[in-house]
């Protein structure tokens, strides 16, 4: 694999992960638990959409086939998407959405802090801009985990159920393949092995503070690095892509 090809696929993976997470989060728009929180999560989804747009724009440029970020977003099928499986999992109740977000925010803050040191100037620039946004997202999701965990019996139960459901999808965030190997050797990609123990430590602390029980299973679903997805992605894409596919030449 050439390094140009690896960089394209790496950027696509990051862009897809942001795009699908943002699309999932935006399902809460207008359905949040109350007005202020509705706005907060919508803001967060918008930040992540913005990051996804920058990444897919760069991926399209790297691909060099004249496609745009919109082409990549709206005219690829599920077997061409490389978003992490955790991002396509259903929102569930607010507690599940929040614990998924906390798990991802914790990972993303570490990841993009490292990516900001990348030798690829564009990726480093996008990462640098994202760090402040993700710091805020993490503050938001972590404080909600604490609130649910130290709230009522029901809020704790819902949070625990959400954690149990989402936990088997966290491990895949750290999966690497030949794309990572090529780019790590060039100082472009982040070595995910180096982040794992830091992430585990921080998540364990969060779990303890929120009175949660860490799931014992170490089983991790896998597949997204090969564009193999759970059944949920096709539904997300159907909703996200139907209008542009119906009106491919429309401008907005």
């Amino acid at each position, binding site marked *: 694999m050439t390094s140009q090809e690896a960089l394209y696929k790496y950027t696509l993976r990051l862009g897809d992960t942001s795009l699908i997470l943002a699309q999932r989060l935006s399902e809460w728009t207008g359905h949040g638990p109350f007005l202020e929180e509705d*706005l907060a999560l919508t803001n967060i989804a918008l930040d992540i959409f913005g990051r996804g747009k920058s990444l897919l724009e760069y991926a399209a440029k790297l691909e060099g086939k004249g496609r745009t970020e919109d082409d990549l977003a709206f005219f690829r099928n599920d077997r061409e998407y490389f978003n992490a499986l955790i991002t396509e999992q259903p929102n569930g109740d607010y507690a599940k959405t929040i614990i998924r977000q906390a798990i991802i925010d914790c990972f993303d803050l570490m990841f993009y802090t490292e990516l900001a040191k990348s030798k690829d100037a564009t990726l480093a620039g996008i990462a640098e801009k994202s760090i402040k946004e993700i710091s805020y997202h993490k503050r938001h999701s972590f404080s909600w985990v604490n609130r649910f965990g130290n709230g009522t019996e029901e809020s704790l139960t819902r949070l625990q159920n959400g954690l149990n459901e989402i936990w088997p999808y966290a491990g895949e965030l750290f999966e690497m393949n030949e794309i990572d190997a090529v780019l790590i050797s060039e100082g472009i990609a982040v070595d995910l092995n180096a982040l794992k123990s830091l992430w585990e430590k921080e998540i364990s602390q969060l779990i303890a503070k929120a009175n949660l029980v860490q799931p014992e299973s170490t089983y991790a679903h896998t597949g997204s690095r090969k564009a193999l997805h759970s059944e949920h992605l096709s539904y997300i894409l159907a909703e996200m892509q139907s209008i542009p596919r119906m009106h491919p030449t429309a401008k907005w």
Partner: protein
Amino acid sequence: MSNDSQGPLWEVFLQKKAGQPFVHCGNLHAYDKEMALQNARDLYTRRNEGMSIWVVPSSAIVASSPEDMGSFFEPANDKIFRHPTFYQIPDGVGHM
């Protein structure tokens, strides 16, 4: 969405720049201080409206009531001597 599911009301004050007064800009619902601060950030500072935020529980604000208007404010109406307009400011003082 019933009232009691949104948490208590908080008043939000924003400071545009360091040194300027905090100005009341609205209110919001939140269950605790951290949530109130985060909600204020999301609701009132999306377009760079401020550099610093105060949130205060609405219940902590003591307000005069409309009935107080007469006794509170009318006595000031006929006391124009309270305005500093009855003496000349020497030129040397410049802008005050």
